[in-house]
């Protein structure tokens, strides 16, 4: 098992303390609520699509540090990029968190998001890291609610089935 210390790195702690793009976004062209009933994590993601570009994005909610930092870094990563870029990151983040790709050996576009690679060794925390991405996916597809316990559970099913 990897040292969980590697998960609580300064960059994650910093994003937890000072989350980027935190708050409400109104009006928003797309939004979704995400919750993990097992731990009570709950967050909302709202964004504005201009054509295919994510012009603005914000999140808010109650969650653990892993979830909040993941949401913060996610918004920073997708803001200003295209919907297609976001979909690619959603897929790659999920694959990293569930151990389906090795970010040290396989090509990816995750950049600094690889600080979350350690969650793959903490099965109970994988959902914390993935929840914001799940919710972003739901928002992009205008699904009103998403849950880590739904059929598109990141532990069991592809995230693209919403």
């Amino acid at each position, binding site marked *: 098992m990897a040292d*969980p210390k590697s*998960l609580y790195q300064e960059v994650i702690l910093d994003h*937890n303390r000072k989350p980027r793009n935190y708050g409400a976004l109104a009006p928003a062209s797309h939004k979704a609520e995400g919750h993990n009933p097992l731990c*009570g*994590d709950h967050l909302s993601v709202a964004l504005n699509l201009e054509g295919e570009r994510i012009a603005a994005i914000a999140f808010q909610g109650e969650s653990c540090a*892993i979830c909040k930092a993941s949401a913060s870094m996610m918004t920073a990563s997708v803001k200003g990029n295209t919907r297609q870029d976001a979909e690619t990151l959603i897929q790659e983040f999920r694959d990293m968190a569930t151990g389906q790709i090795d970010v040290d050996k396989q090509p990816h576009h995750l950049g600094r998001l690889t600080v979350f690679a350690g969650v793959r060794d903490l099965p109970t925390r994988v959902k914390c890291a993935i929840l914001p991405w799940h919710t972003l996916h739901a928002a992009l597809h205008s699904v009103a609610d998403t849950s880590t316990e739904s059929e598109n559970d990141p532990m069991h099913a592809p995230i693209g089935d919403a």
Partner: protein
Amino acid sequence: MTAIQTALKSRPGSAFDVERIRADFPILKLRPGGKPLVYLDNAASSQMPQQVIDRLVRYQTAQHANIHRAVHTLSEIATAEYEEARRKLARFINAREEREVIFTSGTTEAINLAMHAYGRKFIGAGDEIILTTLEHHSNIVPWQMLAEEKGARIRVAPINDAGELLIDEYEKLFNERTRLVGVAHVSNALGTVNPVKQIIAFARARGVPVLVDGAQAVPHMKVDVQDLDCDFYAFSGHKLCGPTGIGILYGKAALLERMQPFKGGGDMILSVTFEKTTYNVIPQKFEAGTPPIAAAIGLGAAIDYLSAIGMDAIAAHELDLLDYATEQLKRMPGVRIIGTAGEKAAVLSFALDGVHPHDVGTLLNQDGVAVRTGHHCAQPVMQRFKVPATSRASFAFYNTMAEVDALVAGIRNVQKVFS
């Protein structure tokens, strides 16, 4: 050494040898991640001593067959051992008769049994069931299912900021429509010991039966169902140093006899034709199919083990641990203890300022300290205290003061990481 530890060490007449007890538990020798295991999740499930493991091995090696069926020797042995386990359980909780002890798969099934076999027969439209804010989901959801099916109503007794039932408010919930009371003996989320004797007296005066969820009480204190005068008492084996998959529903014989069967199948019948089936007597009426024979016998061995130590000695040691841990955490800035009832069992729920319980749990785990984090299947309690979740350290008789120190050091580390 702190003053408390010194006082404990020098307590006269204390024959409790925790190191000798720990030697009985092979799992406590584990070193996850190279650190000694500090197992403080006993309210979720306790660990098993070698004596119980050995009993399970002996059963599977030399005594296993199905029970209550064949005339061959192994079946006779298995039946005798299974019924001996029932006798041990009956003695342990001081049931009047062995047939008042029904084996179930656990507390959840025990409560569901009472709901189906008693509730569905005797509770109807407009009737009321009194529960408390402190209940585990397993003593809420079955009654909600019944209420939905029958058009009955659930009434919920409130608690104060310490996590204690408001007993005056409680009594006001009774009326002529009250048909059942369900109450936790000990809150799994907060450790509050509820005044069940007083509640049972209220109910008794009004002819209302009481189901006590004893899952968190039986492992920590002497329970006497006759002294309590409860109608039902439910608990689990795996919190009692026994195996998973076994639990008990105690019920007064007269009540059990009036109830309808819960599950249909073999062993719960006297005769079957396609025209008419005659049900067996209690307790077999409620034990359809092949029961968890090995688990029942293992639980019997666990009862022997606990009885040899003595429930009073266990309770005293655990309260020492709780007092010491409570004193330590109270003095730590940024730590809030959730659940400060005057009477508590060895459960310590807490919240750290600015740190989510799941982060607390992951970081404590890194130090070898196993605690539970989450809503503890008691979401109404979390809502009452306006927290999404808590971290919970729950102690057993094999825990030590040094393990409390490890918990405290672990919490300090979490605070440092998040400072």
